[in-house]
């Protein structure tokens, strides 16, 4: 269970780092790489997993969606999950400790792994919620253009 100090840091990060990065992430895919916004069924699935499950299960879900053999018209979904997997992997392997300074010192490797998973579950939930909210606006913009 994260400490109050860690929670405060996560709330700060959510506003100042995760929110702008989630907005930039989905805008880059839709506006620059010309991907379609994530369809509602995918949004619901991703949100449900992010809100209710452990980080390990979220990782498995994203990997599964990325590895699926999507038909040509749905290749953008594969692109999104590929990029999301990369981003979360970097966050877990590097940023969590070096940039966010969220991991406590002096934990055993098992405790550190557990803490890392708990923190990543919270950070990824924040990131995905921001991503999904912006995705909804981008979907409106795309529907208007069609």
């Amino acid at each position, binding site marked *: 269970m994260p400490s109050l100090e860690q929670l405060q840091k996560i709330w700060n990060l959510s506003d100042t780092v995760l929110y702008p990065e989630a907005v930039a992430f989905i805008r880059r895919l839709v506006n620059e790489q010309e991907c379609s916004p994530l369809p509602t069924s995918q949004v619901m699935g991703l949100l449900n997993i992010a809100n209710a499950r452990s980080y390990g299960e979220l990782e498995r879900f994203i990997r599964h969606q990325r590895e699926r053999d999507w038909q040509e018209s749905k290749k953008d979904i594969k692109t999104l999950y590929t990029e999301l997997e990369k981003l979360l992997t970097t966050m877990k392997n590097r940023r969590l400790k070096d940039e966010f300074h969220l991991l406590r010192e002096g934990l055993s490797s098992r405790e550190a792994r557990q803490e890392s998973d708990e923190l990543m579950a919270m950070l990824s939930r924040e990131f995905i919620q921001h991503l999904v909210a912006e995705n*909804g606006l981008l979907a409106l913009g795309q529907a208007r253009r069609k």
Partner: protein
Amino acid sequence: MNIEMQIIREVNIQAENFYDDAIGFGNHAAYALRKEHRSQLTGLENIANSALKVADILDYIKRQTARSKESEGWRQSFPQAANQREAFGPALLRYLEEELHKKHNSIARRLGIGDQTDEDRQLRRSIYLHLIRQFVRQMVIQYEYWLTVGNGKKGA
């Protein structure tokens, strides 16, 4: 005076300055959401009052906008607005993200709050949340007033 009290004092001063803007948004809300969608605006006020993060409030506005039908509700523009083509949701989002963001920065500067330590960032988040709460409160009061007095053709 402790720092929390100083923040509240500064936010109250700023609230006087953005009162006219909040009135404009309250009128826009009444025109666009009418009585039927009151719960969406009170929902925003509840989120603003209970949120621990500014982003939760912004996400709520985005979700409501995305759920609205074309040219209705949060996607409804307002003939009396400065930008007559801008819909309620996007206009409110822009105001909170740009105007209140600037105000929160200037309050932080005045109170000598930096942005390097966790404590500073926490205080900045608190300033921003207080500003949004004040703004939304003023906006919702005007929304209720407009609906009661009946200023708008659609809001009456």
